[in-house]
């Protein structure tokens, strides 16, 4: 191919015994969009970090525009015209858009930063590519979508000819995702080449010309997007056919947890603003929304880590008084926390210690103030067997487990013994397709035996697939619930963007 802009040959990278990338080779053409598809842990991000010079590969070479890149040198990658939009944005929050973009673009020893020139160039690029953003704004005041635009501008500012986007839609609303896709089309029309990393099949089908599928560090397949379908790609990704969880109709029972006009302080984003919500037995309530709109506050409230500043909580028909994590556990609320590393587990403690972390004081695991290690170990072994957790032993430090296995342990801990209310915050975030299906099956099983479940997720497809009722959170407020299939994705997207609320403001 004469039009080849990028060529990776035989890239291999090992982290200790783990082979993250195994002899991967591919080429990228001018004006082409390649989707790099794979489950979490398949090695997509590692591969891109090698390409960009963050990691040094053990074997193999990267060639951009016919010239080999020196390994481990981001500057060389930048100079060769490779721009990367990381999954976790690399922006300094307390600095302005202009400062973030101009960082490193002018000689460090210049006596003064040429802000006027930088500003002019940013504004021109923004206009050319439809990436409107105020250069003087501080990054911390921007929405996630705007921050991503800043990241793309950063790459364009440096004359990137090849743009790598790592899971770019994970944090976007449907409308923002559409806008991103339009931007990508514009970029391709101007001759840029794009590598789009994702594990969402429908996005891959929507934007790419060619799909590369990674599985356990190997290239397991390469397809023209035109001549493939989601089913085939999913099979390539997982190595087997994946059946989606089946939802059987269940009749909703008694309200088990009722929030009545509850408000809270801010917590990782907006706080709750007079939120009322009823969770019924045998029902999954899905909470959709763009992150930072109060989901974290709601999860913290139900988990007991945050106290309400107003309103009432009642559980199984009785108003609760003093609210704390202990009270929440005591009332039979099981928690699957959003961040399994920071909140869900204690990384440097053993599997056994982690599974009893919520209940070590109960008579089941302690006697006269001394821990009953035998009972604890038995419980850990039960979970490992019942939930098919791959782990060397109950004594292993939990941080050594993969995300999926960690989540299975958390599920096992939360679902024993049959909790009445389950709070599932982003229960499948970062999990691979197989583990996602497993988590879904377990939640549906809990629903069938009559648990009331609150499912908080940023993945709209997940919400639509599992929820009996859907509520949307925006700016700390909750939309009225809708039954399964009642609102379209578009309508939910508008509610997520807060449009429904604005419209009612205008009417009033």
């Amino acid at each position, binding site marked *: 191919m004469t039009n080849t802009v990028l060529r990776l040959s035989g890239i291999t990278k090992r*982290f200790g015994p783990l082979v993250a990338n195994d002899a991967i080779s591919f080429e990228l053409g001018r004006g082409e969009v390649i989707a790099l598809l794979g489950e979490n842990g398949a090695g997509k991000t590692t591969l891109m*970090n090698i390409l960009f010079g*963050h*990691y*040094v590969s053990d074997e193999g070479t990267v060639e951009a525009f016919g010239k080999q890149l020196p390994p*481990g040198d*981001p*500057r060389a*990658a*930048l*100079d060769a015209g490779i721009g*990367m939009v*990381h999954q*976790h944005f*690399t*922006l*300094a*929050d*307390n*600095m302005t858009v202009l*400062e*973030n973009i*101009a*960082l*490193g*673009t*002018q*000689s*460090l*020893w*210049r*006596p*003064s*930063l040429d802000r006027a020139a930088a500003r002019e160039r940013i504004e021109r690029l923004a206009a050319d590519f439809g990436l409107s953003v105020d250069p003087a704004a501080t990054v911390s005041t921007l929405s996630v979508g705007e921050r991503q635009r800043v990241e793309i501008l*950063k790459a364009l500012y440096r004359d990137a000819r090849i743009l790598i986007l790592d899971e770019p839609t994970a944090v976007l609303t449907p409308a923002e995702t559409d806008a991103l896709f339009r931007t990508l089309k514009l970029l391709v029309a101007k001759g840029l080449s794009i590598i789009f990393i994702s594990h969402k099949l429908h996005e891959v089908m929507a934007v790419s010309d060619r799909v590369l599928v990674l599985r356990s560090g190997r290239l397991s397949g390469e397809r023209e997007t035109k001549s493939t379908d989601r089913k085939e790609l999913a099979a390539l990704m997982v190595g087997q056919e994946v059946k989606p969880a089946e939802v059987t109709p269940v009749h909703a029972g008694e309200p088990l947890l009722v929030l009545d006009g509850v408000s809270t302080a801010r917590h990782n984003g907006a706080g709750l603003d007079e939120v009322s919500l009823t969770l019924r037995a045998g029902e999954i309530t899905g909470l959709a929304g763009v992150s930072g709109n109060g989901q974290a506050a709601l999860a913290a409230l139900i988990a007991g880590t945050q106290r309400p500043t107003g309103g009432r909580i009642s559980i199984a028909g009785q108003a609760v008084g003093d609210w704390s994590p202990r009270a929440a556990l005591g009332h039979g609320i099981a928690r699957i926390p959003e961040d399994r590393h920071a909140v869900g587990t204690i990384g440097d403690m053993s599997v056994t210690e982690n599974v009893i972390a919520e209940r070590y004081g109960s008579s089941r695991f302690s006697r006269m103030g001394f821990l009953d290690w035998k009972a604890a170990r038995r419980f850990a072994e039960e979970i490992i067997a019942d939930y098919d957790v791959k782990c060397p032993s109950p004594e292993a430090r939990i941080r050594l487990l993969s995300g999926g296995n960690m989540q299975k342990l958390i599920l096992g801990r939360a679902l024993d013994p049959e909790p009445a209310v389950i709070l599932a915050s982003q229960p499948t975030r970062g999990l691979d397709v197989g583990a996602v299906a497993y988590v879904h099956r377990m939640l549906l099983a809990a629903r069938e035996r009559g648990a009331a479940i609150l499912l908080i997720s940023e993945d709209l497809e997940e919400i639509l697939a599992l929820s009996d009722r859907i509520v949307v959170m925006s700016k700390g407020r909750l939309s009225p619930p809708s039954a399964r299939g009642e609102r379209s994705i578009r309508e939910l997207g508008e509610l997520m963007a807060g449009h429904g609320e604005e419209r009612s403001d205008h009417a009033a």
Partner: protein
Amino acid sequence: MDALEILFTASFWVAAIRIASPLIFATMGELICERAGVLNLGIEGIMTAGAFAGWFTVYAGGDLWTGVLVAALAGGLFGLLHATLTVPLGLSQHVVGIGVTLLATSLTYFTYRLALPEVTSPPKIEPFQPLPIPGLSKLPVLGEALFSQTPLTYLAFVTVAVVAWVLYRTPLGLAVRAAGENPSAVEAQGISVTGIRMGAVVVGSALMAVGGAFLTMSAFNSFFFEMINGRGWICIALVVFGSWRPGKALLGAILFAAFDAYQVRLQQMSGGIVPYQVFLMMPYALSILALILVARRATYPKALMIPYQKGER
């Protein structure tokens, strides 16, 4: 003379600015380190080393400016030690900082004893003399306070202006601030975080040492043990007080120095009725109060004290 009249005397302000000068140097030094994301608790020891190095250079026959330069070099060396341990090796900044302070202080005393084994009273040098600036020094009160100081004090003020300019107006300053906010942003733009942070710690430490040298070469004329006397720790608080901004930190340094100059004068006035320790305590008590009032809402550099390791998962 009553307690309020003191505030309007020129000699009070002359003293305040003189006391502030070493704090200004060292505070700027600490501020640079922290802006790049490294807390430098070596400050107290580095100031001690600077005080000795500058003074001893002059005592051994060097001229005053050579002394300042040697002090800066000594500080830079201890800074390099601190930076090597905390930046590429990513060790605890607290532990390394305290270690550097202990090492630099003891090494300084040891060197002093080796160099001057026989002396009982510290030998004196001819220190920097006041250099009135023509015209400006004739202004009432202000002229004497600001423009009749030694060249080293003028240098302190110039340093603040330079640090502020570099941090906010140059590409280098942008990189330093970004290294303290989000090092991966710096890395992603092709700049070495390690290089920026080490450079900041070395330069910052050199400034701390010049602050120490001010004491032996401008405020006094000899070196004695324990003379830094907690000034380094005060500078750490001043950086917080100034919300990591050079201008505000300068104000903080002058404010603290004014408290200090004031308490000395109050001591003399009180005639021994109130124990003098109460007055000695005053600047510190007031500093704590000021910190509570001013610095509660400070936005600190987000990556402060977080080691950055390239390519870490």
